[in-house]
């Protein structure tokens, strides 16, 4: 990012449909948050204070999926105001856990949940940012880690392309010398199809990865699903491993629907 040393680059953090957890990756940076405030000028970050969606910025971080008609307008405005758009977290990169409703009848469940459904203006689908505008960098995770954010900001400030992690969680798990929970305990671990970046925290605690970081590059969900069935999972249980936090990611979506038996009674997944 070629900038005059005395002019601090402007940064905005926007929120759409989400739980705010990824914004916390900024707020939980500790001392780095102070350093960051000396390096950049944060013009918009509603959760932390400043509100100004109109000033053009160098970097716009986007948390959340697009779920209402207003969102679609707002995101276009943000794109036209920003040099780099970085989507952060599962919601912004794959539609998030709320994309589960893409497989259900939205009208029916809005009617079931809300006393006055006419006030709810939801789109039928919860979709990732990249379905609507050009995204320059995607940081996956539910939530993203502060480490990812720091690396991305630092690289952009240097004018370098940020490193995109796309290997499987297994790589990081093995580097940390954890024993494979799938092989040693028969846990249905999603590590072999999941993008690294979390630091393999679930296997480190002896439990199976549930893929909050979404699909890695070149995944083979069919083969892993077959292995889950071999471990004794029912096909409806195996499908839920794929149709969870990143059910909107095409690789997982396809696999989840494929292995879900038509007779299963776990909700209206087929819509």
């Amino acid at each position, binding site marked *: 990012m070629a900038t005059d040393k005395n002019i601090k680059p402007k940064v905005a953090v926007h929120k759409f449909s989400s739980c705010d957890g990824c914004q916390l990756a900024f707020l939980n940076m500790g001392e*780095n948050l102070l*350093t*960051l405030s*000396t*390096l950049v000028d944060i013009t918009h970050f509603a959760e932390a204070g400043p509100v100004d969606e109109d000033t053009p910025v160098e970097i716009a971080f986007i948390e959340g999926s697009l779920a209402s008609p207003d969102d679609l307008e707002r995101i276009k405005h943000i794109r036209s105001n920003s040099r780099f758009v970085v989507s952060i977290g599962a919601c912004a990169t794959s539609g998030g856990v709320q994309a589960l409703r893409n497989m259900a009848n939205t009208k029916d469940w809005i009617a079931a949940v809300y006393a006055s459904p006419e006030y709810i203006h939801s789109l039928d689908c919860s979709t990732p940012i990249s379905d609507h505008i050009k995204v320059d960098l995607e940081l996956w995770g539910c939530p993203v880690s502060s480490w990812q954010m*720091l*690396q991305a*900001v*630092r690289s952009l*400030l*240097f004018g370098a392309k940020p*490193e995109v992690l*796309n*290997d*499987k969680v*297994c*790589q990081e798990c*093995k*580097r*940390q*010398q*954890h*024993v*494979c929970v*799938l*092989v*040693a*305990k*028969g846990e249905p*671990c999603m*590590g*072999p*199809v999941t993008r690294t970046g979390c630091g393999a925290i679930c296997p480190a605690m*002896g439990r199976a990865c549930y893929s909050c970081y979404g699909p890695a*590059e*070149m*995944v*083979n969900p*069919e*083969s*892993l699903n*077959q*292995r889950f069935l071999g471990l004794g999972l029912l096909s409806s249980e195996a499908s839920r491993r794929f149709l969870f936090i990143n059910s909107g990611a095409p690789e997982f979506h396809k696999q989840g629907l494929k292995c879900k038996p038509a007779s299963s009674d776990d909700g209206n997944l087929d819509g």
Partner: protein
Amino acid sequence: MTNKNSKVEFLPRSHFQELIEHLQQAGYTCVGPQVHEHAIHYAELAHADFLPQGMSEEQSPGQYRLHEAGHDRYFAWANGPQALKPLLFTPREALWQSSNNCEDNASLCFKELIPEQRPLAVIGARACDLAALYIHDKHFLQHGYRDPYYLARRKNMLLIAVNCTHPADTCFCASTGDGPRATYGYDLLLNELDDGFIIESHSEKGVAIQTQLNLQAAEASQLEQANDAVEQAAARQTRGLPAQNLSQPLLDNLHHPHWEEVAQRCLSCGNCTAVCPTCFCHSELDEPVLDGSHSVHYRQWDSCFCQKHSYIHGMTIRDTAGLRYRQWMTHKLGSWHEQFGRSGCVGCGRCITWCPVGIDITEEAKVICSGDQHD
């Protein structure tokens, strides 16, 4: 080969702790097998009580299960996921640091980050791991290109080998000629019997430790028992590679349809390469601190199953699982001969056990090298 000053003696199991204490007094930090996260793992060993006494395990493609077997032995199991590799070629380490806070007013300066390494004594190294170590020594310490990071860890390492008596179903060291008997590359060697160990030294360092121990003379019947146990361990192995040098059969079958069949199952997860004691690929990365004042350059384990491993500007050369698996096998079992004068497989079977979907290198190599379905 047994050191000329070495005696073959007997160490009762109840005195094993003395070996650990003598090693500690000689300045070594002991590393040994212990039960950890449902497997046998090597870690710093403070006392013989932490050894996996009474434990055995079962291994099959994609599966490892540890259990209490109700015996008194310390080493009645075959290798877990790791042994010597992570101790020497560490999974992630800082190589150097660059900084713009320099003493001589330079705008950029560099500092090498060579590790300070305490001398380690590794208890329980198996034949397959010693064979792999020999390959890694050749790779990392080749004349003129010695890796200072590996060297710092390697130079003071003392190795106490144990001959295998309980190979796993996935072990095939007898077929590669690398085990189950350790024949080189160690300082002390143990053969485990019901009530203790036959101990012998194979280096000056080993003799120095052995002479301090309060040992009994080994009886002929004990030596015979020890020898029989290792021979039976070899005889029990059922897996094997079709031949020790598969360079030509692999090159002849680069388009065998079986590569695609493996690709249907392969997850491209790289677990096989991470557990393989001879795989040495790594990637390098920089981690600058946020204020940009300095940056640390790391190397970490990488794998030919990862996309960036074959990325060159603008393209990924191996962009299918079939090509990645083929790269792995043709290097390990084929071109390795040209590079290192031997196969890259020491028959430890780890890649079979720790592959989440149980892909078996011995089975796949057999099909591919048979050329039966050659197109």
